[in-house]
């Protein structure tokens, strides 16, 4: 089945220790998104890629970076995680930005 996969499902890191979250898709979609979601709040878009074009949200901290080496994979790098970065991180894909977004199961990040 075509799907969006996120690894790991749970990630524990230490304050200030860089961490990378992974997302892959078999849908061959052009767009990949990263969202941050805290405590059953609405998802907050961090950035998205349309093909290789990176689109950062204005209020996304510099601490968050992303890479998309190919169509299938996209990574979220948190350079120096703080306690406030503990959250669920959701990856989503869509054919284009007007189309339905399909989400992965999320990675829950804990910062100690």
């Amino acid at each position, binding site marked *: 089945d075509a799907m969006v996969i996120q690894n790991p499902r749970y990630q524990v890191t230490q304050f200030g220790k860089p961490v990378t979250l992974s997302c892959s898709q078999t849908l061959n979609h052009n767009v990949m998104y990263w969202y941050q979601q805290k405590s*059953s709040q*609405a998802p907050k878009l961090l950035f998205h890629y349309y093909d290789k*074009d990176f689109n950062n949200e204005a209020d996304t901290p510099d601490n968050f970076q992303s890479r998309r080496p190919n169509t299938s994979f996209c990574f979220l790098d948190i350079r120096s995680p703080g306690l406030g970065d503990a959250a669920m991180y959701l990856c989503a894909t869509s054919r284009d*930005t007007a189309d339905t977004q*399909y*989400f*992965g199961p*999320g990675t829950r990040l804990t910062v100690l």
Partner: protein
Amino acid sequence: AQSVAQPEDQVNVAEGNPLTVKCTYSVSGNPYLFWYVQYPNRGLQFLLKYITGDNLVKGSYGFEAEFNKSQTSFHLKKPSALVSDSALYFCAVREPWAGNNRKLIWGLGTSLAVNP
């Protein structure tokens, strides 16, 4: 500016009864409207969307939503609730124009509890 409101933080309904989760929106032009559901510690699952056409949209798991342009609403409904429908529901809207940087504007979510 476009916005989405989900006026109820929580909805409680008895199993077997009809359920409604409310959503109103504000957007210039014709909106694209979406409903997603989120179970605990899971990602969001797409339920249904309205772009154009019939105002009554049918989606997954027996859910449907009615687009009402005059009331700027897109309420989610189900004729007979199941305990397994208990989850967090998000309404979202997108402007139908604005190039490749279009993004979803999300409501704050409504927690649905279906009681046995």
